[in-house]
């Protein structure tokens, strides 16, 4: 039971830390970003928005990949254990 919860707690902590770091990155790096060769402010705003949007997508992708790998790895490991227990019994 504890192992099940611990796995998720680690994922939750990872996702939460990524979110806070992402917010910091947006606030400290992306928002104050100045691109000297682009004069149009609207274009700069769109670039900033797209960069922030990409960060959010990256965050979601990472979240999905971590869980997907965790699920299939756990399922495989658990099946191997079950198989070993069965063969030991026989």
């Amino acid at each position: 039971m504890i192992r099940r919860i611990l796995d998720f707690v680690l994922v939750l902590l990872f996702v939460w830390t990524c979110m806070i770091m992402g917010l910091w990155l947006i606030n400290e790096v992306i928002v104050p970003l100045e691109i000297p060769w682009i004069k149009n402010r609207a274009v700069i705003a769109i670039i900033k928005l797209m960069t922030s949007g990409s960060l959010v997508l990256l965050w979601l992708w990472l979240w999905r990949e971590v869980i997907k790998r965790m699920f299939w790895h756990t399922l495989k490991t658990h099946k191997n254990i079950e198989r070993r227990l069965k063969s030991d019994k026989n």
Partner: protein
Amino acid sequence: MINEFVTLIVGFIVSLLSMPLVMKFMKKKGIVGIDVHKKSKPVIPEMGGIAVIIGIAASVTIASVLTPEKTRLLLSFLASTLIAGVVGAIDDLKPLSARVKPFLTLFSGMPILMLCTYDPRGPIFPIIGRTRLTIVYPILIIVALAVTSNAVNMMDPFNGTMSGTCTVITVTLLISSFILGRNDGILLSLCILGPLLVLYLFNRYPAKVFPGDVGSLSVGAALGAIAILGHLEAVAIVAFAPQIMNGFYGLSTMGRLYERREAARPVVLLDDERLMATPDPEAPLTLARIILAHGPLYEYEAARVIIILSIISGILAIFTAYLTKVTI
């Protein structure tokens, strides 16, 4: 503070009194569901969420009598909840398609926009502070309520999980409102807490009633509305992590919007009444399936794991509220 306490008590008592009546009515009308995670396949009355809506309506009415200056805010909250509830009731009686249901829940955010009860300056996030999403924010409100209502609707795999996790989220929003000094958040959280506790009492393992889509969609919309009206957006995102996880994984593995009845079952019932994750690659990767990947569990154990996860994300959400307070 007495007003808020009265609101909580009224919501609890009205829901407690109306729940048995709703259950009796649903049984009489044959609006029942089969508890598929039990060998005996008991028949359980559906649409218990109606008692929750009655309780919320009662507590909102009392709150608007006691605090008349907040009537507009309370009205938009109740209207959002009711619209989602009506969509849920339609779905319970005549199942809607996987695309129509989320589309209809988009309307639940409309009362907040029409009554202008949201903060037009945009949401506040930790570290960033107040954002300037003045143009995008109204659109985000509509999407947010549809997301929360459907995320809660998808997170109802075992007895007591939907009601238990939503109670945890409500308590999280309540504590965060205290930390951030958001009086509207405190009042609205207490309006929903009483009815949710009643739902949990009746819906926990072994369930005596199912909330139905009328319950899950309305509660989801109500929680989304509390996040918007109480300016608790960042806190709500973290508190909703298990629901977001569940919905997002399911959708990303299926690659489309889907209804539970259309997809392969993610969980299998064993002979000893334990539940096991299916190895079927076609089945959606839900939170319940991921939890059961470690090995079979009894239904009440699996429900407990999900509620514990919700408590942990609630603690992180409260920490997020602290960070937000430090930022502003």
